[in-house]
């Protein structure tokens, strides 16, 4: 039998030369008369080891990484086809501490097989949640989500069951499930990795959401920066329909659900749920006033459930294992696991999925290994461009909704970016304003004008910091959505925790 070799084909692995690696291995195997079969799998989320090559051996899947085309001859010489030792050896993939110490619920099967291999997905427990949901009525499905204590993973952490129940109880001829796959936050890539690596999980989650809310139409709003994710999702949708896990009369249940992929237009604010709906309707992504909430008055005025990719991907596990299992992980207010995403100047960047409650320090230092540059850490930003900048003195804070709120921060979509000592925090604060100015949908004056003024002020040698603070106060109070109201968070936390960087430039010389 041919030896199975796994080489990821997600966007990061491709950017790091995975295609060339696969070609080189194919050529080398042919030259050496070795019988191999290359499987292009999804990513395991161990981004630091990409391209991560795995070989199926008698003892399990042996990992090598990061591997480049120029390592190939040496790997064959070291008999990697039988797990031979090589300087890039990482041992059995399941024993790599970075992976082994995780509690994977969302990323459980990501990277085990090719993303279009529906049989492999099913063989690894896929569709068990949907199978369970098909046997329940909608209320019971939502009960399970409620017991699980699942909160939205897109940023606002709103209890999922409340939204689901609102949509279910709304009377309308048509309802929608919209998956928010706009993943605009810098430092986040969990949605991308799931869509590119385990797309059937998202499809399964959306069908469950459809059963739970009485909706028969799903739309995945994918940002245009993720073209590969859109392609993989479209292929998976076709495969799921062919296997009757999607489409009409799913598994002879009498229930139907369709999913369509919609590609965004390169706007961060379109990740905000009402702007996203406008965008889906083909209009500029101008934020709508709330109420009415989308759950009652959403896409084309119809009741619409909007959830993040990871929120929806939690549903299959919850239905398969029961809500109590999910609730038992994490802390009372922060139930379940979060696929934290480590990036920036960090040695071991990637997905680290764990129950809420580990400390920022554990994640950054023990798991992330500190900076890649070797320079001391100055700050981390947690929760995307609208998230707080935190100094090392606060690294003992727990990664949980309540603990982060207590220090004026938020978990957001779980992205944590590490900045080294060379970082000028005033430049970071200025960027927060500039990004807001660039992305503002223009509806509110404090956001549209305030952000421009803020960026101008912080560009001065001796900015009027009282004026900056005034601006922040007006933006926080006078903006209709978090773009304007939360831009002051990175600005103020940078000002509070790194005051030295805001001293007048000439005085500092």
């Amino acid at each position: 039998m041919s030896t199975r070799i796994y080489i990821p084909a997600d966007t990061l692995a491709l950017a790091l030369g995975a295609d060339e690696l696969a070609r080189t291995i194919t050529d080398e195997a042919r030259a050496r008369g070795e019988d191999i079969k290359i499987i292009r799998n999804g990513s395991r989320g161990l981004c630091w080891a990409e391209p991560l090559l795995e070989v199926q051996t008698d003892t399990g899947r042996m990992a090598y990484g990061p591997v480049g085309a120029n390592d190939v001859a040496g790997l064959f010489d070291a008999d990697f086809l039988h797990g031979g030792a090589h300087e890039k050896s990482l041992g059995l993939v399941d024993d790599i501490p970075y992976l082994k110490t995780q509690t994977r619920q969302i990323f459980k099967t990501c990277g085990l097989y090719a993303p279009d291999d529906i049989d492999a997905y099913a063989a690894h427990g896929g569709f068990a949640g949907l199978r369970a949901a098909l046997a329940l009525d909608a209320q019971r499905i939502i009960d399970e989500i409620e017991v699980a204590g699942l909160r939205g993973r897109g940023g606002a952490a709103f209890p999922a069951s409340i939204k689901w129940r609102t949509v279910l109880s709304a009377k309308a001829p048509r309802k929608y499930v919209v998956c928010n796959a706009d993943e605009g936050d810098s430092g986040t890539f969990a949605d991308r990795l799931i869509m590119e690596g385990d797309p059937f999980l998202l499809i399964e989650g959306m069908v469950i959401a459809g059963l739970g809310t009485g909706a028969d139409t799903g739309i995945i709003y994918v940002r245009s920066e993720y073209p590969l994710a859109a392609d993989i999702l479209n292929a998976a949708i076709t495969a799921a329909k062919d296997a009757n896990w999607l489409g009409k009369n799913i598994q002879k249940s009498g229930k139907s659900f369709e999913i369509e992929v919609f590609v965004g237009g390169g706007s961060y604010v379109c990740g905000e749920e009402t702007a996203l709906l406008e965008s889906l309707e083909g209009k500029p992504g101008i934020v709508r006033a709330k109420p009415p909430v989308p759950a009652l008055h959403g896409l084309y005025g119809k009741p619409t459930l909007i959830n993040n990719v990871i929120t929806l991907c939690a549903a299959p596990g919850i239905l398969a294992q029961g809500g109590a299992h999910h609730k038992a992980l994490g802390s009372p207010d922060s139930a379940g696991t979060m696929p934290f995403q480590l990036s920036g100047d960090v040695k071991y960047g990637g997905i680290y999925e764990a129950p809420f409650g580990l400390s920022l320090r554990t994640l950054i230092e023990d798991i992330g290994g500190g900076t890649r540059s070797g320079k001391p850490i100055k700050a981390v930003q947690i929760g995307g461009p609208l998230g707080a900048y935190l100094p090392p003195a606060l690294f003992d804070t727990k990664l949980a909704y309540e603990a982060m709120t207590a220090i004026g921060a938020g978990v957001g979509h779980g992205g944590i970016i590490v900045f080294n000592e060379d970082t000028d925090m005033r430049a970071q604060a200025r960027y927060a304003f500039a990004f807001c100015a660039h992305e503002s949908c223009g509806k509110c004056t404090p956001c549209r004008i305030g952000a421009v003024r803020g960026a101008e002020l912080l560009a001065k040698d001796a900015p009027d910091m009282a004026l900056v603070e005034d601006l922040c106060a007006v933006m926080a109070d006078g903006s209709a959505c978090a773009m304007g109201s939360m831009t002051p968070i990175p600005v103020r936390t940078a000002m509070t925790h790194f005051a030295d960087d805001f001293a007048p430039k000439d005085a500092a010389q």
Partner: protein
Amino acid sequence: MTRWNEEKCRALIEETCAKGQPLTAALRALVDAFGYIDDAALAPLMQGFARSRAEVRSAIAYYDDFSMRPPGRHSIRLCQAEACQAAGARALTAHACAKTGLQPGQTSADGALTLHNVYCLGLCTHGPAALIDGKPVAELDEDKLDAHLAGLEP
């Protein structure tokens, strides 16, 4: 990508209308086909989607992906977002601007290259990230960028 062509433009707009898709879907189709939205597309877009000139123009203006200026034959999109900043994106962008004489959003006079900003490509563990002629690139540095620029056919 092909050169602007009125007939194909009208066909794409009709096709989107026939499928019942919204205005932005037609804008996407035009940009995918020609790289930009020509002035001459405004009238058929207004007609096809029963929108005013202002509505069509504001939809184009709102989205970063849509532009009414023809792009260069090559494109470099440099990520400006925080994780890439932490890996040196600011200095790299400054270098790219100095080397090409372009500011983000500008196209060189000979039409060879357009420099763009982009905000996160989901490659945040390996910044600075970029899209070069649509291809994702990770761990970009000055040398790799210079080599790429030197290799561009005029």
